[in-house]
């Protein structure tokens, strides 16, 4: 266990944690601390990723030197490194944008600490190898996310935050129930230890069912999606970016780890059900996005649709499943960057003077960077080449067709088409005259450039597939699916 890797992993948690605390205790330093973290965290995540790729095998850290079952273990494989990278990139964009967005309001003093604590919670979650650590991380993420949503003024945001809190609290309790039952059956909390001791008893199925339901609620998978559009569309824009980019994926990550490490062998029906829900989410979310006039609502429904894609690979149950899951992981990264870019560019348009499609008054001429960002992000969301989204969808389609899942493959393709339609619904009117809600105001340059940079990064992911997929392979996180074919 090389010290450098351990240091990098632990810094990924301690840096945003101390930064958040500092931002809270010394409000004057909040901006410096936030931007500093935004610069340092991606460097830390990138170094970690390089280390992990070099090392080639999964790494385990025992906190304080205490081994399981008493101690808490962290584990780092390719998937963890990728998720840490995603969080770092998306959050650094949101942090810098937020430092400008809230600059002249009182909310700034609350945004930085909450956002930094959210990032801390996310990093803890991705590093955890222990059921209870995951619970604590889920709570940190959930509560700070609720606080962030409530930062926006107005009844809509408060109601959205309240609903989100109720849902997330209930989901956490269900997850805890699952942990309790698994602990009772196996006497362990460490993921690897629990996996070794499961016997397929009915209680274990119930526990996993409860935990799955909990994660579905937190990820807003259809039909448990009802809290997402109000919360994501009424939250302040950098908050929406963080929520859509990473927070909804965090619970999917937990579910994936449970499935890969802990699930019993015969899970075909369960997997098909999840994939079906995912497919419905893709179609339903995209259609709802098409119907929206308000920009933020459109982007929020787009998130609900994209989350659906991430559940489709659950239906796969053979060696090609690995490439399906690689596609999903790649989609997580691409979507995080693209969706952040989308929300941030919508935020720019709002700051400029309108928040509905009908109010896009020649925005292309007046905010070219912003509309460019939105369009490029749209390319990724629709899955057009060359972009990260294209690579992701290609991998998923390859796997689906390899297993002859024609309906699911068709949904993936149709989803891309629908996404292109709703992106054009925004980009088209941006060229024409509209009626602004209020006189146009200047949009700070930082805000425009951050949105643009994120969208370019999403496109750039279309060219970096090979090294990232190699990184993802470290520790063979999806190996359980390869074994699935032999077990049947």
């Amino acid at each position, binding site marked *: 266990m090389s010290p450098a890797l351990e240091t990098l992993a632990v810094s990924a948690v301690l840096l945003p944690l101390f930064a958040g605390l500092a931002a809270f205790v010394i409000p004057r330093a909040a901006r410096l601390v936030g931007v500093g973290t935004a610069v340092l965290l991606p460097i830390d995540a990138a170094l970690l990723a390089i280390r992990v790729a070099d090392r080639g095998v999964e790494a385990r850290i025992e906190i304080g030197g205490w081994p399981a079952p008493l101690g808490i273990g962290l584990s780092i494989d390719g998937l963890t490194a990728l998720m840490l990278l995603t969080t770092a990139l998306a959050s650094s964009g949101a942090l810098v944008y937020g430092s400008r967005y809230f600059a002249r309001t009182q909310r700034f003093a609350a945004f930085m600490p909450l956002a930094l604590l959210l990032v801390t919670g996310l990093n803890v979650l991705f590093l955890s190898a222990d059921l209870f650590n995951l619970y604590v991380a889920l709570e940190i993420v959930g509560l700070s996310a609720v606080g962030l949503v409530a930062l926006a003024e107005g009844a809509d945001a408060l109601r959205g935050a*309240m*609903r989100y809190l109720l849902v997330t609290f209930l989901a956490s309790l269900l997850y805890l129930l699952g942990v*309790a039952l698994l602990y*009772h059956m196996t*006497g362990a909390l460490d993921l690897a230890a629990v996996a070794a001791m499961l016997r397929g008893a009915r209680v274990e199925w119930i526990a996993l069912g409860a935990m799955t339901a909990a994660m579905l609620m937190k990820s807003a998978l259809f039909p448990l999606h009802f809290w997402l559009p109000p919360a994501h569309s009424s939250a302040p824009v950098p908050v929406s970016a963080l929520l859509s980019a990473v927070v909804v994926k965090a619970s999917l990550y937990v579910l994936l780890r449970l499935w890969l490490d802990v699930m019993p062998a015969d899970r075909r029906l369960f997997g098909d059900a999840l994939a079906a829900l995912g497919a419905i989410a893709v179609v339903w979310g995209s259609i709802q996005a098409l119907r929206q006039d308000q920009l933020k*609502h459109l982007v929020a429904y787009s998130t609900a649709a994209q989350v659906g894609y991430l559940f489709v690979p659950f239906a796969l149950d053979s060696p090609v499943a690995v490439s399906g899951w690689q596609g999903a992981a790649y989609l997580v990264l691409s979507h995080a960057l693209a969706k952040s870019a989308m929300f941030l560019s919508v935020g720019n348009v709002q700051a400029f003077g309108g928040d509905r499609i009908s109010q896009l008054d020649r925005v292309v001429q007046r905010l070219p960077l912003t509309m460019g960002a939105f369009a490029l992000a749209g390319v990724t969301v629709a899955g057009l080449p060359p972009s990260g989204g294209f690579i992701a969808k290609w991998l998923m389609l390859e796997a689906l067709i390899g297993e002859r899942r024609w309906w699911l493959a068709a949904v993936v393709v149709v989803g891309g088409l629908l996404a292109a339609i709703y992106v054009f619904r925004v980009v088209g009117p941006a060229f024409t005259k509209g009626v602004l809600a209020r006189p146009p105001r200047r949009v700070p340059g930082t805000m425009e450039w951050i949105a643009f940079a994120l969208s370019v990064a999403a496109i750039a992911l279309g060219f970096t597939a090979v090294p990232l997929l190699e990184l993802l392979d470290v520790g063979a996180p999806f190996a359980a699916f390869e074994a699935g074919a032999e077990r049947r």
Partner: protein
Amino acid sequence: MSMDALYPFAGVALIVLGLEALIRHEHLMRKILALNITGSGVFLVIGAGARPAPDGSADPVAQALIITGIVVAIAATALALALMVRVADETGRAEIDAPRPGEDESSPGSADP
């Protein structure tokens, strides 16, 4: 039914009662209380599933789980109550209307200014 079976059954009963109340009542205070009851049910199940050490002393891991759960529930409840007060201040009612089937708050044209 032995005394030992009482705890898990009571825990599950509390969880179900809490869920039912959460769904049925509209007022936020009741929803928050319902979630707390569900939480207590979960903690009871944790305790019921505890595995005592061979020498008869209590299970420290289960205790740690319950204590952490209680602390988290307190924090979440505090946040929920604060939000409820703010919602009541802004809208005059401490209720968030559940979307009716087939309609949700973000259908076109329905957004608040």
